[in-house]
């Protein structure tokens, strides 16, 4: 170790937040789920809402999110997190209910719950991890899988003829009057992490001000499912995922951002 003499509390500039437990996360090395968990937890710490936050965990790789977030939590059936969040937030309007969902959870099996919760403008925060694949079950095709992308269930690559087009569910949700804030971010670089954290903060602030639904999509890697090293997967994500899923705000303060 270099410079051990400066390792003192007064010189500390970064450490893991206590809103994450000390449990070792089960995610694959380099997976964006871990990074996103950490920044959601940091926002909760910075806003001082640890005792008010309620996490609705999905089914998918992040099914065990409640072991990592040191807040109240409920595990939802696959895709139903926005419905559970609706009930919880209506029962406890001054708390901060957020869902944490993958693309299979939010955009396939949970499409109905997602669309209707957003259309009702439920005062919830949705954190949406789009890695273009079903990670947990072994890398099957998701609605968000890119054309040409090879997965366990599209071994020759996704085609329009057989599988239809990749679903830009986030753009779709921005069309609904109930959504107040919709943004797409990523967590592959330090700058991206800072921006995503700002976006997540904005989402929770909107909720505090009872503005309706806020959704932060995080375009992420699934290096195991994509069969790449974590660093290669991040590069592939920038070159391919960002083309179909461009980074930036889609709807701010209830108004769609003009491109």
């Amino acid at each position: 170790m270099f410079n051990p003499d400066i390792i003192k509390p007064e010189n500390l500039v970064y450490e893991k937040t206590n809103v994450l437990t000390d449990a070792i996360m089960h995610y694959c090395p380099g997976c964006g789920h871990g990074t996103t968990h950490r920044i959601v937890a940091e926002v909760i710490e910075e806003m001082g809402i640890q005792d008010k936050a309620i996490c609705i965990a999905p089914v998918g790789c992040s099914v065990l999110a409640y072991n990592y977030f040191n807040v109240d939590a409920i595990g939802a059936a696959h895709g139903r997190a926005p419905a559970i969040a609706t009930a919880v937030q209506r029962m406890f309007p001054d708390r901060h209910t957020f869902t944490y969902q993958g693309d299979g959870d939010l955009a396939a099996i949970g499409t109905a719950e997602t669309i209707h919760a957003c259309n009702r403008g439920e005062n919830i925060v949705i954190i949406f991890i789009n890695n273009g694949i079903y990670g947990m079950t072994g890398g099957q095709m998701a609605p968000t899988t890119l054309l040409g992308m090879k997965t366990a269930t599209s071994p020759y690559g996704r085609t329009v003829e057989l599988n239809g087009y990749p679903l830009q569910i986030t753009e779709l949700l921005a069309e609904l009057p109930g959504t107040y804030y919709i943004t797409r971010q990523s967590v592959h670089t330090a700058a991206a992490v800072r921006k995503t954290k700002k976006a997540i903060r904005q989402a929770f602030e909107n909720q505090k001000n009872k503005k309706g639904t806020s959704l932060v999509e995080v375009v992420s890697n699934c290096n195991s499912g994509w069969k790449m090293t974590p660093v290669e997967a991040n590069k592939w994500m920038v070159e391919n995922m960002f083309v179909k899923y461009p980074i930036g705000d889609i709807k701010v303060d209830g108004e769609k951002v003009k491109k």
Partner: protein
Amino acid sequence: MAIKGAVVIDKERCKGCGVCITACPNSVLALSKNVNGKGYHYSEAIIDNCIGCTSCALVCPDGVITVYKVKL
């Protein structure tokens, strides 16, 4: 004004994904030749060039990096 930084990496929790290595602007980090209890080549500082910018810690999926910084 010089800036000096130091990183403390919890090597038993590190999964050796290497994302921090790409994030570091000063090429401070590399994967160790040694492995931890889980068999991962963990990340470690190999040169005395850290400026305490926290980039590595920000991208670490497992939150294993703690960063210190002083202005001299």
